[in-house]
């Protein structure tokens, strides 16, 4: 059997593919990419974390990334894992690494939460919208993180740290407000809220 193929069309198609390929830079082709190589062990390639307790960095606001790194490096956010690495990021080039993750396409966690927990979380989320906005998009430039699509395990762990005052917000008014909100919530509701925000795109 002979397949009829138009030679000239294929040559053109291959030429175009090749041009597209050449124009497409390697995924490692940015000043921050090399410096962020160590991050992918925990945060996934390009910051697309597959795990439940590790935040997704892909598409993160550079302002919020830098604030978080500084807080980890100074021990204001407690994390035995992140404190040494945050110091590495500051040492290696905070701006470049923040820019690298910001350039990556924003991803949402692939870990699916229980639909019932998501529904309960949605019903309980009203009080969060004051700071994190109606859809959880927050205002990262002002320090209010975008919660959408972050893994539930990470969101839950952070809420528990804040509730138990192991992590404190620097703005005392906000810290008081956050405390008041979280203290009223049971660990179960906190888990539901985490499920809800992780389900948002």
């Amino acid at each position, binding site marked *: 059997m002979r397949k009829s193929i138009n030679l000239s069309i294929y040559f053109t198609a291959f030429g175009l593919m090749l041009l597209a390929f050449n124009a497409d830079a390697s995924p490692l082709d940015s000043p921050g990419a090399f410096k962020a190589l160590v991050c992918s*062990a925990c945060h*996934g390639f390009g910051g697309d974390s597959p795990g439940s307790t590790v935040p997704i960095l892909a598409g993160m606001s550079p302002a919020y990334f830098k604030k978080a790194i500084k807080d980890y490096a100074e021990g204001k956010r407690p994390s035995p894992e992140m404190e040494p690495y945050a110091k590495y990021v500051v040492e290696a080039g905070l701006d470049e690494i923040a820019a690298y993750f910001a350039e990556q396409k924003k991803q949402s966690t692939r870990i699916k939460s229980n639909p019932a927990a998501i529904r309960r979380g949605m019903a309980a989320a009203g009080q969060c919208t004051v700071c994190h906005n109606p859809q959880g998009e927050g205002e990262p430039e002002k320090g209010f993180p975008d919660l959408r699509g972050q893994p539930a395990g990470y969101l839950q762990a952070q809420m528990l740290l804040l509730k138990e005052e192991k992590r404190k917000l620097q703005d005392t008014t906000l810290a008081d407000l956050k405390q008041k909100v979280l203290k009223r919530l049971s660990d179960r509701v906190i888990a539901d809220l985490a499920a809800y925000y992780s389900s948002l795109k």
Partner: protein
Amino acid sequence: MKNITRREFLKASGIGIAILGTGGEASFAAATKGRRVVVIGGGWGGATAAKYIRLADPSIEVTLLEPSKEFISCPFSNLVLSGVESLKRLTMGYNGLRKHGVKIRHEAATAIEPDKRRVKVGNDYLEYDRLVVSPGIDFQWDQVEGLDKAKDTVLHAWKAGAQTVKLAQQLQSMKDGGVFVMTVPPVAYRCPPGPYERACQVAWYLKTKKPRSKLIVLDANKDIVSKTGLFKTVFKDYPNLEYRPSNKAEKIDVGSREITTEPGDKVKYDVINLIPPQRAAAIAVEADLVGGDKRWCEVDHVTYESVKQKNIHVIGDSTIGLPVPKSGNIANAMGKICAVAVVHLLSDKEAPVIAPGNTCYSWVNDKEAIAVVNSYKIENRKVVQIEQKLTPGKSVAVAQNSLAWRASIWSDILG
């Protein structure tokens, strides 16, 4: 218009790529000449390096030599002994690397010929422009009297796989009231906290399933080698665990089920887990990549090029001289950094200066873990530690983090 067969089309399109890709002058073969990399070993270091070379520059031909068709994670394999984890969940394939265009040959490299820049594989030779050697460790059987002859039954289970499953069976079939003895080799060895995590897993299993039994840990070192304070605290959870430092395994007698240690103590066992002293795998020793100690390979801290042989890079547990542990996380970091260096050097560019990092979890029972984390920088082309941080104690949260870590790093190596 012309009708052609599929085969003719493939030929024609190949020429098309060559013409378009090289400005119409050179052939396709010439485009790849000088850009061939061979990687020996598909573990945490080698598999990562092979993948990342292709990610950084898909025009480089990368061949990975790995005899095993499956990747079995050493991290978490201690949990197979206690039944907390199954070996199946630690076993993965290499198809992800094939999708990146890595050519995989499931064969062992038998020799390296640095002068001819080629690697022997069976009766065949593979030529390289740069070689990445990530061979892992071999055991020094002759360091313990009687071990060489007994090595089929006296298990190390220090390379995850069949031995891991066998040792788990030996532990399960031990009578309640029995004595399980394990030995810790002198530094340097693969995975510094590994023996102590294993001790916790075995002790937890015995405490839960065979409460009249006992674990004796004979450590060749003066003290617990890694996460010392944390393990000392955790060991208090296990009254069935007897830890004896400065007790180097000297002789094993399988007939009388007895092990003799350097101070001359004789210890009877029902099940023995003897982790022998270690060195870089044989191929690295035979290719003269090792230093004066004939055990480990010294490398440049930026490019991972061997200090002994040009165009050969060594990564992972077989290296020495960097202030880093022999851990899977470090091997993965070295794989990525070495890959970027190789890609630059093949294009006659200077390799960027990138420091590794280390995250290391140890499970101390069926649901809690501890961790140590190290970050590094490079000063005057040498790796220097920025900080080491330990978890305050054992916790479920740290164990959960370790599961996120493994999902991410396995995908970083193989995905």
